[in-house]
């Protein structure tokens, strides 16, 4: 992407309430999220001519959402997928604009992830027949994301001596961040003892190692830097993007080890290569936290620490507000709510603007106290470069580097 660095940017972000009972359709939520992001950017209906979304048979397509907002589309596309989609779609939106198909693209994800289609496999999904590649694992009681990822986490513990207590520090950090986020579903700060003392879901995952399934819609708007000049917000410029990069044998990734290696092993060269920076240049990370372990595995694979030292890295204080490189300052999927990755990009855009919506009375004007004691600030001082590490599965991931 040598020629595209800084040529595209995110100019608007928006979301609906994080809840466990939206009481309305994914279409209704998507419309609200897109409208909120448009208002944030200062865009009217005729300014938006592209729309994309991702889903897994649990949402509303873009061409049903646009008409509710008076938008006539020159381009739309709905793709199949969950985590790792956001970053990939930012790259595809840039391609759609670059090719001349459209000018400005709204990307949304809308899901009743708690009250309707629970990603864990209960609710509506429980009745679905088991066929195709699912026959390699579901008949053995390996159905949910946690169940599917657990052997990867266990092998990392075996190979590198990673402990439950180290990884619990991810939850501790993200709960600290969520306590500064009025939108978060789970605002209470927790301790390592709380995490390792919570009940087992599937070993090595305790309840508090797992994220909180949520009803929510999110939206980000991508346009060209040229178009962004007269818009409302300070743009978040795209330095580099890697979309759904895979390990070998993605159909059955256990076949190609080491299984504790994740997709970032391959994605890092693409995304850092485009951006022309190194991990130490990043101020804030958004490493996908469907589970405590996913944050840890990706941070080490992308080179924020040495391979195998992820446990030490996430328990060193580095990833907490006030540390050198905070991760998921909104509280992420573990505490703010589970949105398949887009909320973490939204948070990083707000960090780059210097306007995270914390408890500081002047946050909307960029006035922050930088006091990270409970119930106060979550703005990172002088955040200039952020990075999102999207996770679909151990062998599949995406990444996005933004700067202010």
């Amino acid at each position: 992407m040598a020629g595209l660095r800084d040529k595209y940017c995110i100019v608007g972000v928006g979301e609906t309430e994080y809840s466990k009972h939206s009481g309305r359709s994914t279409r209704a939520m998507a419309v609200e999220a897109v409208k909120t992001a448009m208002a944030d950017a200062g865009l009217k209906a005729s300014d938006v001519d592209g729309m994309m979304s991702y889903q897994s048979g649990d949402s509303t397509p873009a061409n049903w959402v646009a008409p509710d907002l008076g938008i006539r589309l020159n381009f739309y596309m709905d793709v199949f997928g969950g985590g790792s989609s956001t970053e990939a779609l930012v790259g595809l939106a840039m391609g759609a604009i670059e090719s001349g198909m459209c000018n400005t693209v709204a990307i949304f994800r809308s899901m009743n992830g708690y009250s309707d289609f629970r990603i864990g496999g209960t609710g509506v999904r429980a009745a679905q027949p088991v066929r195709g590649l699912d026959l390699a694992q579901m008949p053995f009681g390996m159905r949910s994301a946690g169940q599917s990822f657990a052997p990867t986490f266990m092998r990392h513990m075996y190979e590198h001596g990673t402990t439950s207590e180290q990884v619990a520090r991810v939850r501790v950090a993200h709960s600290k961040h969520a306590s500064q986020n009025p939108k978060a579903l789970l605002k209470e700060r927790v301790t390592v003892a709380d995490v390792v003392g919570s009940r087992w879901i599937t070993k090595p995952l305790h309840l508090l190692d797992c994220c909180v399934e949520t009803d929510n819609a999110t939206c980000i708007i991508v346009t060209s830097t040229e178009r962004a000049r007269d818009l409302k917000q300070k743009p978040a410029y795209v330095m580099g993007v890697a979309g759904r990069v895979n390990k070998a044998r993605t159909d059955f990734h256990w076949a190609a080890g080491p299984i504790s290696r994740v997709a970032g092993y391959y994605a890092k060269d693409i995304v850092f290569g485009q951006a022309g920076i190194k991990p130490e240049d990043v101020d804030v990370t958004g490493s996908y936290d469907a589970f405590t372990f996913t944050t840890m595995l990706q941070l080490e694979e992308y080179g924020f620490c040495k391979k195998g030292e992820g446990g030490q890295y996430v328990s060193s204080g580095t990833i907490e507000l006030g540390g050198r490189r905070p991760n998921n300052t909104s509280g992420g999927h573990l505490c703010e709510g589970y949105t398949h990755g887009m909320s973490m990009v939204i948070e990083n855009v707000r960090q780059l603007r210097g306007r995270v919506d914390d408890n500081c009375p002047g946050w909307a004007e960029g006035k922050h106290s930088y006091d990270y004691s409970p119930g106060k600030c979550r703005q990172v001082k002088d955040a200039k470069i952020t990075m999102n590490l999207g996770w679909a599965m151990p062998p599949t991931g995406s990444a996005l580097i933004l700067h202010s």
Partner: protein
Amino acid sequence: MANVEYRGMNLVIPENDSEWREHFKLARGHKLMLRACKACGLMRYPPSHGCPWCATLEWEWKEVSGKGHIYSYEVVHHAIQPGFKEWTPYAVVLVELDEQRGKPTPDEALRIIANLVTPDGKPEAEAKVAIGKRVRVVFQDLTPDFALPQFTLTDEPPVGRVWSLPG
């Protein structure tokens, strides 16, 4: 269309299936057989259509010993599928088979997901599950044409370090 009801799940193998029907039928004959490339001879799992290493589309079934060791595992305490609730806690194991270990590259191997069960087909006790322990295949017959390959512990010496999650 083959429909197998198992623990409340509907396992579906349609008429035009090109991957699974023979695999589970061979398992019903108590053979663990994998697809082997007719050109380079390397085996793979799950059943697929082209060789992951040389892209040759021609293959043949090849029987393996069904012996291996536990490469990784989990112990499910909170079952998702209702039919597994009575089985909790149950172990899901990633078994590395003895054949083709470290081939064609050092990190590759034939690995398969299954449950760790006692010889009579019940979930193995949680305290006995550990990485490195030796296992052999056993077959859980579900219909006249369908059996699930499962694994059970043997008393052979372990492979490498024996390790299980502390606590």
